[in-house]
């Protein structure tokens, strides 16, 4: 069960992701470099947050064209598990591995806070540790987290259960007033149609070790691990 954490110039959440796999799951993990053309023997890939290539042009716009991302696309096409967190989510939408795009927060401010989220679909390799309707707290830290996709795309995603997490309040209410960044349908995390690529703005890796005060994000990594173990015998 080897995990890879993909590094770009400007990634700044890679060590937290590494820690989640290495220390919390206790599984082998290595860093992958954006110039790598081959990913080697990995079963799951984490694209961490940060400011790849300084977020120049658009967040993820330059990173998604790197050699390693071409390899990640092939890995995902073959069914490999990929999760992009924050800037990783932006890179995955830029690469069209996930639908939609992440626009500037509607309030124009960089948001950095603990955020309550509602689990929408627990029936995926990334969310099986949760129950539908669970309210969990993961930190968010982003300037471009305002998820947008065309109305017909959103309708399709809703119908297919592709929304994994939505922004909500502590009571699990999802409304415009509980939406920190203006994301359409309060979307905080999504999965692709084939169910093996996830993008989310909130940071489960910053909510994975109780020494940080929060550990409900651990469920994302445990879900992935259980899926991998079940599928590798």
């Amino acid at each position, binding site marked *: 069960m080897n995990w890879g954490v993909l590094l770009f110039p400007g990634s700044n959440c890679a060590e937290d992701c590494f820690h989640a796999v290495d220390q919390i799951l206790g599984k082998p993990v290595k860093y992958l470099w954006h110039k790598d053309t081959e990913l080697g023997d990995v079963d799951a890939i984490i694209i961490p947050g940060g400011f790849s290539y300084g977020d120049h042009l658009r967040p993820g716009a330059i990173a998604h064209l790197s050699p390693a991302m071409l390899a990640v696309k092939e890995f995902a096409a073959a069914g490999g598990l990929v999760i992009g967190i924050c800037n990783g989510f932006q890179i995955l939408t830029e690469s069209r591995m996930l639908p939609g795009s992440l*626009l*500037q927060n*509607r309030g124009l401010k960089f948001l950095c806070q603990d955020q309550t989220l509602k689990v929408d679909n627990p029936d995926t390799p990334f969310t099986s540790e949760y129950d539908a309707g669970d309210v969990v707290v993961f930190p968010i830290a982003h300037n471009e987290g305002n998820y947008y996709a065309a109305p017909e795309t959103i309708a399709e995603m809703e119908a297919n259960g592709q929304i994994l997490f939505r922004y909500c309040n502590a009571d699990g209410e999802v409304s415009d007033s509980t939406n920190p960044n203006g994301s359409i349908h309060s979307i905080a995390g999504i999965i692709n149609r084939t169910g093996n690529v996830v993008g989310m703005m909130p940071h489960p890796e910053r909510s994975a070790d109780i020494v940080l005060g929060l550990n409900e994000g651990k469920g994302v990594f445990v879900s992935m691990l259980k899926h991998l173990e079940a599928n590798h015998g």
Partner: protein
Amino acid sequence: MLKAIVTVMLKKGIFDPQGRAVQNGLDSIGFDKVKGVRVGKQLEMDLEMEDMGAAEASVHDMCDKMLANPVVESYSFEIKEA
């Protein structure tokens, strides 16, 4: 040498919070006739090319692959002698 000037804008209908902030700023200093601001980007590129048709095709390709995100942005460009 040719020069390409590419303009990238958020698509019509997509809320542009930056444009709204600029509009509010203009309004607060008395420019109350401004009824809509959209903020985009302009890229100027020097191209080591002579053929206008080839340059156009190349800039289209650049826009589609990297300079604009077709999910949320539209682009236009002009190419002229540098």
